[in-house]
Structures are given as C-alpha cells and as structure tokens.
C-alpha cells in the first residue's frame, strides 16, 4: 500500500514539475525539457517492443526519421501542424506493420540487425528520393511567427504531451492481455505459442505502437527545428540512446524509461555543456560503467535491495 502511494506521489510530482517548467521555465530550460520529453517518448516506445517483448529493436531512429519526413511533407502540402503529427504517427505504424511482417520472424541478434537494416533502408530512401525529400539538401519547414517563449512552450507541450501519452500507453499495455502476451514471448516464445497466444499478432502490435510513438516524436521534432536532413533524423544515436535510457531505468517496466531518460539527459547535457573536446569519451565511459555495474537498471537495483532484508 505504501509502495503504491509512493508511486502515485512520484508520478504526481513528475507531472507537477512538468507543469511548473511549462509556466515558469525560460526558453532554454523549455528546450531541454522538450528534448527530455522526446526521449521519454522514444524510450517508452522502444520499451514496449524491446523491453516487454524482449525484441531488441534498432529501428527507433528509422521510425523517428520516417515520422519527421512524413510530418514535414504533409505540413509542406498545407496540412495543419497537429494533424501532420498524427499522420506521421500513422505512417510509421503502417510501415512498422508491413516491415514487422518480415523482420519479426527473427529473434535475438538477427532481429537486432534486421531492424537496423530497416533504419538504413529508410535513411537511404530519404537520401536518394531527391524529388520528394530533397535528398542530402534536406527539407525546410515553415517557421512559425511566434514569440520566443510562446514557441518554446508550444513544442515543449507537444513533446511532453506525447511523453505522457507514451507512459499511459505503456501502463495500459503492461496491465492488459497484450502485456501478458509480450511477457510470455520474452520468457519463451515457443511455449507462448503452445499456450495458444497469438505471438505474431502481439509482436506486430507492439512494434507498431513503438513505431507510432517514434514517428510522432520525429514529426514534432521536425516542426520544432524547421529543418531536417537524412543524417540528422536517421541518426544512430536516436536508436542507441533510448535503449541506454530504458536500461538505465529498468527494462520492461513502465517507470524505467522515464527515470532512465531523465537521468541520462541530465548527465549527457551537463557533460556536453562542460567539456568541449572530450564529452564523447566521458559519455562513453559513463555508459560503459552503467552497463557493467547497473545492468538491471535503477528500478532493478531497488527491487533487488528490497528482496534482501
């Protein structure tokens, strides 16, 4: 009971902090908040397929980039911005369903590589389909004529809203039959099949949800930054960082990706701000240390301590 109360308070405090940042933060704090919210959405989305189902997807950056381009292209054709974001989520989900039909047959390392290849194919398409995407020259989006704070608040609110949706979806999935099926798949997929679970359907849905969240995040990113090109939005870091975040917090849990993203973004930002030429190496050292000494994530660590009296 107290654990439940504690959890409720923690979520309430997080929401309170989000609201406080919205009303009180300056433009730069809002920008960092926007980045954090984006990574919460990406990490939570990845966690549904990568954590709950145990399918180590490397396609996150692929769907992020796909969403960015889908959102940008629809917006450039006159579709209102929020609608373009929804379209982008839909496009990413549909592509994930189609691609998932092929790659979700594979497991473990093979799935990891196939999903990475999916990202590469999407990036090459965006790079080479110059007529549509501008290729390496990139795409320019309309710039909003808003004040500094108004614009910062708008995109912070959009990414934070998406992050909240992502967490709610995660919680719903975790407590539903789908979540049960995904956990069975992670434990033993063959046995899950024998129990009469439609593993294929469960995996496909999880993959599509994860892709839709990444696609929406990409589309909001594109609107906020007003310029996209293939190397920016199909960046391998957008695949790897959400995974590290989910691991940091606790893979497969609802709160894990949120905690991990918050911790990682704060650490990463402070390293980046304070070290000009060695920030990549410091981040690397941090990542190695965390992976070696905290393989279960923060939540895993807490739970383990609880078991031991």
């Amino acid at each position, binding site marked *: 009971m107290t654990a439940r109360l504690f959890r409720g308070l923690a979520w309430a405090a997080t929401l309170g902090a989000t609201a406080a940042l919205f009303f009180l933060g300056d433009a730069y704090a809002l920008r960092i908040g926007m980045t954090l919210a984006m990574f919460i959405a990406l990490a939570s989305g990845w966690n549904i397929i990568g954590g709950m189902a145990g399918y180590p997807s490397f396609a996150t950056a692929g769907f992020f980039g796909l969403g960015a381009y889908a959102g940008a292209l629809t917006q450039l054709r006159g579709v209102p911005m929020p609608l373009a974001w929804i379209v982008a989520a839909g496009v990413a989900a549909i592509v994930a369903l189609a691609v998932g039909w092929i790659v979700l047959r594979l497991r473990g390392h093979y799935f990891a590589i196939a999903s990475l290849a999916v990202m590469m194919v999407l990036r090459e398409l965006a790079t080479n389909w110059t007529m549509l995407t501008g290729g390496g020259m990139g795409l320019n989006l309309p710039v909003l004529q808003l004040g500094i704070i108004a614009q910062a608040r708008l995109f912070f609110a959009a990414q934070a809203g998406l992050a909240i949706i992502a967490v709610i979806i995660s919680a719903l999935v975790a407590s539903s039959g789908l979540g049960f099926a995904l956990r069975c798949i992670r434990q033993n997929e063959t046995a899950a099949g024998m129990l009469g679970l439609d593993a294929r359907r469960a995996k496909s849905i999880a993959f599509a949800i994860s892709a839709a969240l990444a696609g929406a995040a990409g589309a909001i990113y594109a609107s906020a930054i007003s310029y996209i090109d293939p190397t920016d939005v199909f960046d391998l870091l957008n695949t790897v960082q959400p995974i590290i975040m989910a691991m940091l917090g606790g893979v497969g849990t609802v709160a894990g990706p949120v905690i991990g993203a918050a911790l990682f973004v704060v650490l990463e930002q402070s390293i980046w701000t*304070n070290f*000009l030429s060695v920030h990549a190496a410091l981040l690397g050292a941090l990542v190695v240390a965390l992976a070696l000494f905290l393989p279960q994530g923060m939540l895993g660590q807490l739970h383990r301590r609880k078991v031991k009296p």
Partner: protein
Amino acid sequence: MVGISRRTLLSATLATPMIARTARAQGAVLRIGAPLPLTGGLAPEGLKQKHGYEIWADTVNKQGGIKVGNGMAKVELIYADYESNTARAVQATERMISQDKVSAVLGAYGSGAVKASSSVTERYKVPMLAPNASAKEVYDQGYKFLFGTEASNDALTVPLAKFMQAHLPSLKTMVILSRNDLFPLALGRNMEAAAKQAGIDVASFQSYAVGAMDHASALTEMAAAKPQWVFVTGYTNDLILVRRQMAELKFSAPIITMLTGPSYKEFSDALGPLAEGITAVSWWEASVPYHGIPPFPTAREYNDAYIARYGTAPDYGEASSTACCIALQAAAEKAGSLDPLALRDALASLDVMSFYGRLKFGPSGQIVVQALPLFQLQGGKRVILAPEDIRQGELKILS
C-alpha cells in the same frame, strides 16, 4: 520524489555553463558564440572554422582588443561542439544567447544548420554571421539578423561555365558526379543548371552516397559518354578517391574540375602528379589582390600569419570564418557599441574592404557578389586563370 530530483538536477546543470573560453573578462568584452561541428561528419570543416575564429581573436586581443567608442574591448569566443547535428546547433545557439549573453553568433557549418539556427538569432534579435552557408534559400526568409560571407553557388558555377566555353571551343558534353550531401549536391545541381544555360550538354548526372568507397561504376559509365569536361563535387577525401580511380580506369578529359578539394593543400599533397591540371573555383585564394582593414590587411599577410600559427596554408573555409569576425569587428567599431541591435544595424550598412574582398551585405544578408578566383593546379601550385586582374597563367588543356 523522482520529479523533484529531476528538477533540481536540471537546474543545477543549467546554472553552471562553464565553457572553454579564450579570454578572461576584464572590462568591456565582446562575447561571441561559436557553435562548431567538432565531432561527427563535419568535423574536418568544424576545425577550419575554429582556426579561422581563433587566429582573429588572439591577434586582436594581443593588440589590446578592438576599439569600441572611447575604450578598448577584448573579444571572447564561446565554443560549443554541436556534433554535426542540426538540433544541437540550434540548442547551442540558444544557450549562448540566453545563458552566456553573447552579442553575436558565428554561424554553424552548412546551409541547413545555419537556416535552422538563424530562426533563433532572429527571435532573440542577435546578429548571426555565417561563414559557410552559400545556398540562396538560407537568406530569402526575410531575416534581418542573418549575414553570410559566402556568395551564392551561382557565383561559382555560372562564370565557370562561361570561362570553360570560351577557352575550349570543342566543349559540347560534360558529366557531373556529385556527393549526395547538402553543399556538394546543391553545387552539382547549380552546375547542371549553369551548363544547360550555357548550352553545354550534361550527358550524365550521378550522385554518390556519403561514405562511398568505390566510384568505379559511375566512372565507367561516365567514360562511355566521352565528355570534354568532368565536374566532380565532394569533400576532399571523396575527390582524392575519384581522381585516383579515374587514373586507374584510364578515364580522362580535356577539363577536370573538382570542388572544392583543390583549394586544400591536403588534396594536392595526397594526389601528387595526379592533381596536375585540375581546375576549381573558390570564394577566396591567398593570391587575391584586395587591400583592407586590420588585423590582416592583405590576403598575403593573412596567409603568412596563418601558416606561422598552424603550419598549413588556409583555404576559403578559414578565410571566410575570419572574414565574419572582421566584419563583426568593423561593425562594433563603427557602432561604438557591443549591443546586439547596434551591431546588427552596423552590419547591415557595412561597406569596407578586407583581405577577403569587399565586406558588404546585400538586402538579404548575403555578401554582394564579386568576381571569384578560378584556378588550376599547375606544377603543384594553384595558378589563377580568372578574373583577368589577378590572372597568373593560362588554362592548360589535359589530354
């Protein structure tokens, strides 16, 4: 609990922006933000920008700073590595303005990142000077705080097509090989348009992927068109590889133009005799005749100071970066103020000569077009062929 700790950590991060600084604040200081791509795909270009800024800042500070009103102001550059990522460039720009309170920002590398981050400087009303953004689309947004020291790509390609046509009467067919990447691809497209305008047939337009390790297929196909002119764009490493493979496949043409590799010393060093006869255009050459304001009145003096400091010769990348700084310096001296708005107005009406040429920005903020040097590598040296007033030699046709 989670939320609280996140908030405190976040504000703790924001409260301590300690960045590498080149000078300590004492009295009046002109603070300039410089987001640089020091890691990631654009790292070689980022280093050139950094050198271009650094040599100016140190030279000026050694002389006591720049004259602002009745006193002198030191200059202080605030760097950030934006990791060749546009979002990071935008974030770094905003951080420099809102946290470090800079008076001006030096632009990121490339048209895309400059366009995205110029929306930030525009909103905060802080001038941005972009050394390496040449696409016209960057400047046609009606922004009042954006200035660029590279003339548009047309200024390179249109005179180039005219020159080649005049000097090689048999010129009918050309082929273009372009890296599928922001600046090189835009340049290739510009060349295609300029060639069509001049009535030169573009028999083949190919683009290769970033990181391509083999150009043999494209070159084999291009050789079949028997072109008189081969035009290649890319970064230095790509161009070295293309030139080597052309030699391996015994593919040659009367004119081989490569942009912008031949401007760089690395290019001729790496290729040796294979670099012979390659033509290029550039925004700046050490042999341009301009005479202008200190601290580097002439191109020759700039070139020598740069070699003394870094051991290699500068190319247009460093020169354009330094030119941005000199424009800012001239604006600050003219305005007699370090206020961003005053700097902006002074930049908009600036008209001075420098080692880089005339520093005058057009209504869009892009520098006014001047005749750009066209050169050929002859005997391991860059020999200027045009414009006429600085011509050093004649075009040699390759076999």
